[in-house]
């Protein structure tokens, strides 16, 4: 479904990603773990199209999307849940959702209701402005907003960041449920050990801008291994 091949990217010509290769199969939940500053966010942004790679290719659904602008990638089925949620603060919950929905040609009518099953709080607060909600609620809204676009692939950038532990766990569970119920493929980057363990089917480890290891389901049982990539 997603194939990243030899990507080199960065800001102002200082490379942050170097020769990154990874792939995600349909229906998988794949994690990318690594410490702060190894380039995880840049990786997600490169896949979404917000950062242009200097070299390498990104393939999605069998098509080369390396030069495709982000809005077209979104329309072809990429859903993005950024670090810090990035809710539109002055739009209401409902309008935020409609922003997600607006690319979905009306086929999301059912999903629109579905997301309220996952996140009933959003139903209650339809008319509230996004900016006035708590961090956890905003995270749910961000996920819901991505979901109503009916994406094939969801990209999450540090879903646990700035969220209290209880909500973090709930979000991990929600994501697994979404993956099972809707068959949505998920790629997430994270540095929270428990989130990685709870969510991922398999996981890449990143260090200094490149992929250094790949961990299968069994490796993920082993906290020591994971911790070795998160701590020095």
């Amino acid at each position, binding site marked *: 479904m997603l194939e990243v091949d030899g990507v080199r990217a960065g800001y102002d010509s200082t490379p942050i990603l170097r020769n990154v290769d990874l792939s995600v199969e349909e229906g998988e939940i794949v994690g990318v773990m690594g*410490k*702060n*500053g190894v380039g995880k966010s840049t990786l997600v942004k490169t896949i979404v199209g917000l950062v242009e790679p200097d070299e390498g290719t990104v393939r999605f659904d069998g098509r080369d999307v390396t030069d495709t602008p982000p809005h077209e990638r979104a329309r072809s089925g990429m859903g993005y849940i950024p670090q810090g949620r990035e809710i539109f603060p002055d739009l209401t919950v409902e309008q935020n959702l409609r922003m997600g929905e607006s690319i979905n040609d009306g086929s999301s009518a059912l999903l629109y209701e579905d997301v309220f099953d996952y996140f009933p*709080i959003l139903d209650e607060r339809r008319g509230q402005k996004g900016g*006035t*909600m*708590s*961090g*956890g*609620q905003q995270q749910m809204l961000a996920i819901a907003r991505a979901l109503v676009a009916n994406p094939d692939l969801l990209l999450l950038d540090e879903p646990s*960041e*700035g*969220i*209290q*532990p*209880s*909500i973090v766990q*709930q979000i991990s569970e929600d994501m697994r449920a979404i993956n099972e119920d809707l068959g949505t493929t998920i790629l997430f980057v994270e540095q929270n050990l428990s989130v990685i363990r709870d969510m991922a089917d398999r996981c890449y480890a990143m260090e200094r801008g490149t992929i250094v290891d790949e961990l299968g389901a069994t490796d993920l049982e082993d906290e020591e291994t994971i911790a070795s990539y*998160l*701590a*020095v």
Partner: protein
Amino acid sequence: MSDTADGMDPAVKQTSAELATGVDTDTILKTEGITKRFGGLTAIDDVDFDVEAGELRCLIGPNGAGKSTLLNLITGALSPSEGEVYFRGHDITEMDPHERIRRGLSIKFQVPSVYEDLTVRENVRLPIQRLASGAERDERMADALAAAGLSAKADVAASALSHGEQQQLEIGMAASLDPDLLLLDEPVAGLSVDERAEIAERITQLNEERSIAFVVIEHDTDFVAEIADHVTVLHQGETFREGSIEEIETDPEVQRIYLGGETDA
């Protein structure tokens, strides 16, 4: 909540009068019935918050509990809808931020915002040049650089520092004001484990060696356990619990608000 009338109580006014005369010299910071509303949202609701001199206090609470708002009310970046703030016995509620800073308050914001065009040394010079000149200035700048752990990078442009180093630089700058109380808003957000350890060390060092009182906002309880002796839990804009880290960690109510998801008000 049952303590809503406190702000109006003449007995409390009495207390503030005592504060002003310096009777209660240990309390360095005190808020009385402080309340902040943003439109329909009450971010801080009638909070009484005291900090002792030399204390290292952590302020924790779920997202949206009002931690940053409280901090901004203390520094004067926001002005309260109701209530007063006292610092070292003086009512500072109406003061501009810089006046509060000059009285010995200092803050490091959540997002690092060093002056990127300036070198590390010039960044440090900015707070110190107001306080000292000549040899004393040089000395204090050297101290501040050392306190930030950045003596070796003094002549590097601040924009070239890593995220963690920028946080360190900022703590160093905030500390160089020689404050009695230093407020830190999520000083380790987004930092790696070893960077966290570095920051924790800086904080405890400043607290012990210079007896600077700290209020640290943090949601990483491990980090809190590492540095704090006393913890205040905010929840939905109100003071929920206060106590030692052990008391708080074992408190079932705190467990509930942290682990049991959003509670309805």
